[in-house]
Structure formats: structure tokens, C-alpha cells
């Protein structure tokens, strides 16, 4: 599990950890049932306060992304798929918003952007195994 923390910015670290784990789950790089590293291991790896990791895991658990098993540890939730779709949409929306803002600033209209997206789709194979909508 690859997580990168930026301690220079103003985004709280627990939030960075949460967002990146959500992203890994949404993108399929973490699968339901996969085990997350222990709080201590991840804290040492990222050199951050263990309480920060504990908070990120706790909030991910509340959000239903991960689940704690009594003695074993923290795992990606099995029932994560409907939520994963919501999360995926949220991620996609963020990216689209960003794209539109930049496009408008450069003077492109919505029609041009849509046309460009369609053209790009023809040139590239969508990633993932279940690419058919």
C-alpha cells in the first residue's frame, strides 16, 4: 500500500491518509478483504503520529470503507462496493470540475470539451477489467 504524505501543506495528515486509502479502494488497488498495515507499522513507515493513523482508520471504519476484525486487524470492507461506486463518482466529479475550470479559463466551451473527451475515448482503452459500462 503506497501512501505519500505531504507535511508542508495545510491538509491534515489523517485526511490525506483517509483520502488516499479511499482512492486505493475506489480504484481497485485495494480489494475487499485486503488487510491494511497495522497502525504502528504505517505510522513508522510514514513517520507520523500513530494517533493520526488511528484516527484515519477510525473514520474510514465509520464511513464503511474498512472494518475491524476483533483480533486480526483492519480490512477493506466486503460490503464496500456500493460505497466504492459513490466514492468513485465523487473522485470523478472532482477531476471533471477541475478539467472544466481549466478548459473555461483557456477559452474552450463545453461542446469543445465534450467533443475532445469523445475523441480521446476512441484513442485509448479504458483501464480495468470490467470496462464495459
Amino acid at each position, binding site marked *: 500500500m503506497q501512501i505519500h*504524505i505531504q*507535511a*508542508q*501543506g*495545510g491538509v*491534515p495528515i489523517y485526511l490525506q491518509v483517509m483520502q488516499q486509502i479511499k482512492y486505493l479502494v475506489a480504484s481497485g488497488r485495494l480489494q475487499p478483504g485486503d488487510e491494511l498495515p497495522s497502525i504502528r507499522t504505517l505510522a*513508522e513507515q510514514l513517520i507520523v*503520529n*500513530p494517533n493520526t493513523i488511528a484516527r484515519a482508520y477510525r473514520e474510514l471504519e465509520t464511513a464503511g470503507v474498512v472494518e475491524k476484525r476483533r483480533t486480526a486487524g483492519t480490512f477493506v470492507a466486503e460490503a464496500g462496493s456500493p460505497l466504492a461506486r459513490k466514492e468513485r463518482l465523487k473522485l470523478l466529479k472532482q477531476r471533471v470540475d477541475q478539467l472544466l475550470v481549466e478548459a473555461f479559463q483557456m477559452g474552450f466551451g463545453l461542446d469543445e470539451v465534450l467533443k475532445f473527451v469523445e475523441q480521446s475515448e476512441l484513442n485509448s482503452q479504458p483501464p480495468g477489467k470490467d470496462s464495459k459500462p
Partner: protein
Amino acid sequence: MNDLVIDIKNLSRRFGDKQALQDVTLRVPRGGVFGLIGSNGAGKTTLIKHVLGSHYAQSGSVSVFGFDPVADPVEVLGRIGYMSEDREVPGWMRVQEVIDFTRAFYPGWDSGYASELLELFELDPKQKTRSLSRGQTARVCLLLALAHRPELLVLDEPSSGLDPVIRRDILTAIVRTTADEGRTVLFSSHLLDEVQRLADRVAILNCGRIILSDELDTVLDSFHRVTLRFDGSSDLAPSLVGAIESKGHGHEWTYVYRGDREQLIRAAKSLNAQIVHEVPLSLDDIFVCNVQRS
């Protein structure tokens, strides 16, 4: 919060005509990492020396584990692991001799752990400490501070002037110490990215005064840099309640704002202004603007 490891009340200290600490109140709860931030000469080391009982309180009080560290040094110092800013070890001793010497002061010394650290830090027990590099010396000092598994680890500017590899060792030691239930770390630093990574609580010390002390997340949440767009153009920044800094011209002004977001939205609305850009402030930015202001 009743379980305080350090409880300092209204501490003031004067050296000659220099006021080193002025009415400092500081509470460090058990089981976390407390980051003490301040410029050089702000009083961080002086404050730490009061915790260790090397300085007595001229006015106010200092309590560590519920004891006065000046009156009860045995009760207090035996439970603290301390690494000083200067990181001095007697140059005529060998590494093993320094370890044996220090061990004698601590009934809780864990020899197994000391050897483990010796190996981890790749130190040669037979080497004269005089010939150690700066980084190796720091590792020896860290070992001495950790090997009795102290309840409170106090590190004064632990990573200043050290290379990234040794800094990593030191920061990892802080992480490990707090991962063990109930142990507390107090460290001072002006490397704010380290503080942001490791601390749960921070205090900013400036010219001997505490100007901010809170949970790190609360501090990060309560400062914003926000750009407002106003209907009318003006030559002076329109005054925004809660703003502590402003820059800009014409229609758009950027503020550093202290307060919660709802407050900010209300304040912007009352000025008929639109929030066009908003970024969270890093601890670095927060430190700089608070220090400049006071």
C-alpha cells in the same frame, strides 16, 4: 484533563535584564507528542530546563508527574529521557563507557534494548566518543535517552543540523515511543514539517510568551487563507472581522483568517463578497503570521 505529565502555571524567568519566559502556562497531557515551536531565542530551551529542574521557577510553578523537579529531582529525572540541544558526551570515554556510566543513574535501564539500539544505530561500543561524527553522537545521545524506556521523552531541537538519515532515526524513535501506551514526548523544533507529522498538540513560544497552544488539528482547522472578490474596487483591504493579514488590490483581496468556516462565510456575505479561492494554511504559515503579529 486531569492526567497531566507536565503542568506549568504562570512561569516567569528573567536572566539579568532579559525576560526569558513571561507568564507561561503549559499543560502536557499523558500519552501524546507535544511540539514546542519557536524561533531561536524564543525561550524553548529555558522552558525545557525548567521541566528538568535545572532552573527553578522565579515565579509561577512547574510540576512534572505531580512533583516539583527542583525539590524532587530523583522522582522526576529517573522517569525522563532527555536529549539536549548540544548533544554533549564526555569525549574521553568510549561509547560503552558512556552507556555504563549513564545506566548507573537509571534503575529501569533495559540493557537488552540498549544493545538492540546500539546495533540498529550501527555504533561501535569501543569507539572513543571524541572521534564520533556529529550524527553518530546524536545517535549515542538518543540511545542514552531511550534505553531506560522513560515515561517522558524530552528532545530539544533533536534534528537540527543532522542529515536526513539520522533525522529519520530520531523521528522513528518518537513514533515508537508514543506507539507504546501512555508514553509522552515533548520536543522542540523549528522544522515545522516534522512537528506537523508528529505532534498531536503544539504550542508556539515567541519572545518568552506562549502565543498559541492547542491540538494540532484544531490549530490547522482554525486558520484559512481566503481570497474574496468584492463588487466595488478599493485601494485598502476592506476590513473583515477575524482577518489577521491582508494583501491584494482592486476587487480581489486575500486574507489570512482565524476562525471557523461558517463564521468566515457569514463575514464574507455581510461584505457582499464572494469567496473565490480558499486554501488551508500550513503550520509553517500559521507560525510565521502569528509570530509577525505579536
